[in-house]
């Protein structure tokens, strides 16, 4: 049993965007409408607290598409559990996922 964290609305929104979006900083900014100065420090905090983990894309994949490699973020098990409890706490979060899912 992992101890779930109680997140602020903004942190829960970013966690949700990491989960439902493409998993990199700019996609979180686009999904949430939050500025980079809010999104990146929040993602560092979520990573420090073990809710998300980051991984660099393989250089060969980026080279094949002639672009720089990206750093992707994924939810950990603790992050999944925290997101579920946050969705119960902030029901509007689920609507965000539905809207973004409909757009893509």
């Amino acid at each position, binding site marked *: 049993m992992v101890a779930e964290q109680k997140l602020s609305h903004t942190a829960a929104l970013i966690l949700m965007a990491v989960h439902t979006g493409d998993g990199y900083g700019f996609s979180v900014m686009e999904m949430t409408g939050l500025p*980079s100065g809010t999104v990146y420090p929040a993602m560092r905090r979520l990573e420090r607290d073990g809710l998300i983990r980051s991984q660099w894309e393989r250089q060969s994949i980026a080279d094949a598409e002639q672009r720089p490699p990206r750093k992707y973020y994924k939810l950990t098990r603790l992050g999944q559990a925290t997101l579920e409890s946050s969705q119960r706490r902030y029901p509007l979060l689920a609507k965000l996922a539905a809207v973004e899912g409909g757009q893509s």
Partner: protein
Amino acid sequence: MRIHLAMLRSAAWLVPGEQRAEWLAEWSAELWYVRQSGDRQTTSFCLGSFRDAFWLRRNRPSDAPPVPWLESPSQCLGFLGLLASVCVLLALRHHQPDMKLPVTGPILAMLYMAMMALPALPALTSLRLGEYPANRNGWRWAFFAGKIALLLPIVFLGVLDLAAMIGLKIHAGPIHCILVGNVAAFRWALIDQRRRCPECLRLLAHPARIGMPSQTFLEWYGTEFVCVKGHGLLHVPEIPTASFRTQSWMHLDRSWSGLFL
């Protein structure tokens, strides 16, 4: 593009050295994608990097080993004493008899400048040294007083030596530098004192983060340091709360000694 990369490189100086290259690679890659997406907010995107870099600087894990020449109280006082001696020797060599000081006499002027720096100190760091057992209080205060007594001539004479070496007469500039230097020295002395074992006065090591922000009301969260000699643990709360106002020391008795060298 160049100006935006220059902004990211400037912000990178705030990032702790061991994370800087990866941080810059991430932000540079993201900048490339922001530009590809045709987003016109590139400048505000880059400005956000300063906030991210500042967050990393503030929250850097302080797991670096203690500086060897400051670790034990004798090493610390010896190092400061050496610096103070160098400053005194340089002051004797570069003595400028026509220097105008705010108070007559170098010792009085040094104390006057120290007093002038004190009001600014509470704005920069907490004046509390933490909750410690009452035993060996005298040693702790003697060590603290020793550090201050050595820092004052280092700052005062160091700035005057530097001013004399580059040919500056004493006007407002060096006086301001002494004030700023004194504030920085007092701040360092307080922070250093808070990071020492109250029993052997060695710098504490092996910081470990404990708890989570959501536990603030029922538990504490923050950083725990350990004395390498096994005297105890120091709990430093991330945010002072009603139940955990300041850092507190937990003494470990002899039964724990098997865990330490």
